[in-house]
C-alpha cells in the first residue's frame, strides 16, 4: 500500500513537467536546431538566447515592468484587504453579506469585457502606460480574492483573543497591529503570494493598459514573435524566465500552500 500510493501523484507530476522540460530544453537550442529536426535534448548547447534577453533593454525592461506593477498591486491589495477582511470576519453591519457577494462578482467578471472601458478610463485620468495603472486595474480581481482568503484565515482565530485584549485595556489599532496581524502572519504571506501570482499571470489587461514605458514581459514576447518571425529559442528562454518568479514565491509559502488554495477555510 505504501509504495503504490506514490504512483498516481508521480505520473501526474511527470505529465506536468513534460511541457516545462520541453520549454527549458528548447531555450538552450538555437532557432535553427528547433526548426531543423526533432531532438529530445539540445545537440549544440547554447546560452545565446539568455544572453540576448539580459543584454537587450527591450527584453529585460519587460521583466522589470512586470515585477514593478505586480509588487505595487500586491502591496495595495493586501493593505486595503486586511481591515476589510477583519470587519467581515468579526462584525455584522448593514448589507455585509450583499457586499461580500458583490466583491466576489468582480472576481467572476471576464477580463475581455473590461478591456476597452479600462483603456478609456485610464487614458482619461492620464495614467495610461504607467505601472500604477496596471497595478490598480489588477485590484479588480485581486482585492476580492485577498479579502476572501484573509477572511478565511481570520475566522480561524478564536474571538476570545480579541476580547481578552480589549479587557486588558488594549486599544483597537494597537491590538490589530501588535497582536492580531502577527497571529495571522502566515495568512498574510499566503494572500500576498496569491495576489502576486494572479497579477503575474494576467496579460489581457496589462497589455491593454500599456504601450511602451510599462510594457509587461509577456506582451514583449507576443509582440516580438509577430514582428520578427518566430524566434522560437528566444521565446522559449523568455518563457522559462517567466516561470522563475512564481517558483521562488511559492517556495516561501510551501508549507501553507494547501491551506492557502483552500482560501484559508478548511
Amino acid at each position, binding site marked *: 500500500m505504501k509504495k503504490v500510493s506514490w504512483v498516481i501523484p508521480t505520473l501526474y507530476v511527470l505529465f506536468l513537467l513534460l511541457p516545462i522540460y520541453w520549454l527549458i530544453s528548447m531555450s538552450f537550442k538555437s532557432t535553427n536546431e528547433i526548426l531543423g529536426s526533432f531532438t529530445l535534448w539540445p545537440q549544440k548547447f547554447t546560452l545565446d538566447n539568455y544572453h540576448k534577453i539580459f543584454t537587450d533593454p527591450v527584453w529585460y525592461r519587460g521583466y522589470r515592468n512586470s515585477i514593478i506593477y505586480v509588487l505595487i498591486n500586491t502591496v495595495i491589495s493586501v493593505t486595503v484587504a486586511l481591515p476589510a477582511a477583519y470587519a467581515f470576519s468579526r462584525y455584522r453591519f448593514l448589507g455585509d453579506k450583499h457586499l461580500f457577494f458583490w466583491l466576489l462578482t468582480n472576481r*467572476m467578471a471576464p477580463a475581455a469585457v473590461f478591456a476597452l472601458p479600462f483603456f478609456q478610463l485610464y487614458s482619461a485620468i492620464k495614467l495610461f502606460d504607467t505601472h500604477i495603472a496596471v497595478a490598480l486595474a489588477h485590484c479588480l480581481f485581486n482585492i476580492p480574492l485577498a479579502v476572501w482568503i484573509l477572511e478565511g484565515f481570520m475566522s480561524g482565530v478564536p474571538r476570545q483573543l480579541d476580547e481578552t485584549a480589549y479587557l486588558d485595556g488594549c486599544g483597537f489599532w494597537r491590538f490589530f497591529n501588535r497582536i492580531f496581524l502577527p497571529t495571522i502572519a502566515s495568512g498574510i504571506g499566503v494572500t500576498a503570494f496569491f495576489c502576486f501570482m494572479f497579477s503575474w499571470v494576467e496579460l489581457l489587461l496589462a497589455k491593454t493598459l500599456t504601450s511602451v514605458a510599462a510594457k509587461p514581459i509577456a506582451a514583449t514576447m507576443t509582440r516580438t514573435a509577430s514582428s520578427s518571425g518566430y524566434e522560437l529559442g528566444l521565446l522559449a528562454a523568455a518563457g522559462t524566465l517567466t516561470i522563475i518568479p512564481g517558483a521562488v514565491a511559492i517556495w516561501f509559502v510551501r508549507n501553507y500552500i494547501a491551506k492557502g488554495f483552500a482560501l484559508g477555510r478548511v
Partner: protein
Amino acid sequence: MSDKTQNQKGWLFVLPVVLLVAFNALIPLMAVVNYSVQETFGNNVFFFEGMKWFGQVLHSERFHAALLRQLLFTGIILVIEVPLGVIIALSMPRRGPGVSVCLVLMALPLLIPWNVVGAMWNIFALPDIGMLGKLVNGMGIHYNYTQQPIAAWATLIAMDVWHWTSLVVLLAYAGLRSIPDAYYQAARIDGASSWSVFRYIQLPKMRRVLTIAVLLRFMDSFNIYTEPFVLTGGGPGNSTTLLSIDLVKIALGQFDLGPAAAMSIIYFLIILSLSWLFYTVMTRGEDRG
C-alpha cells in the same frame, strides 16, 4: 455567523476596498451599459437605440454557436478536472518528506503567465517539431491541431487539464488534511471499506473546498481568453472560438461597440446566474452536515 457583534463601524473598515473596486468595476460597467444601448457612426456621436443590440445578439447564430462551444468546453473540463483532482489528492500520502516538494511541483503550471502557457502548448503540440505532436503522430494517429477541429479541441482540453487540475488537487488535499487521524482509526475499528471511508468521512469533509474548486474552475474556464487565443486563435475556422475570443473579435477587431457591449452584459449575467446556481446547489444542506 451568529456570534458576530453588530457594529456599523465595519463600513469604515471596508470603505477603502469598496472605493477601489468600485472605481475599477462600476465606471467601466457604466461605459459598457452606455454602449449597449447606443449606435455610433464615428466622431463620438451616439444615438439611443434601446434594446436593439440585445435583441440582435440574443438572436444571432454566431453568439449561439460561441455560447454552445463555451458550455461544452466548461462542461468537459469540469468533468475531467474535478474527479481527476480528487483522485490524485486521495492517493497522496497524508504526510511525509516528499509531500511539500510534490505540492510545489504541482503548483508550477498555475504560476506561468497565461500567454506563456498558450505559447508553450502551441509549440509542444506542433506535429513537425513539437514533442507531443511527434509522439501522437508516431503512434499512428494523424494529428494536426492547426487543421483538424477535433485535434484542436483535444489540445485545448489537454492544455487546460495540464494548467488547472492542480488547483483542484491542492484544494482537495487541504480538505483531506483537516480530517483528524481519530476518524480513520474509528473507521478501521469498525471495519469500514475504503469506499465507505471515502463516502462518509472524506467526501463530507471535502465538500466545502470542492465547492470553492468547482466555483473557481467554472468562473475561470468561462472567462478563458489568453490561452486558447495564443494556442489556436479560435481556429481552425471558428471551431475553438469561445465566448471571450468572439467578444474581443467583435469589440476590438470589428469595433462594433454596441453589439460587443450588449454581448458583454449578457455574458456577465450568464456567469453570475450559473455561479449562483452552483453555489446554492453545492452548499445546500451544509449547515446540517
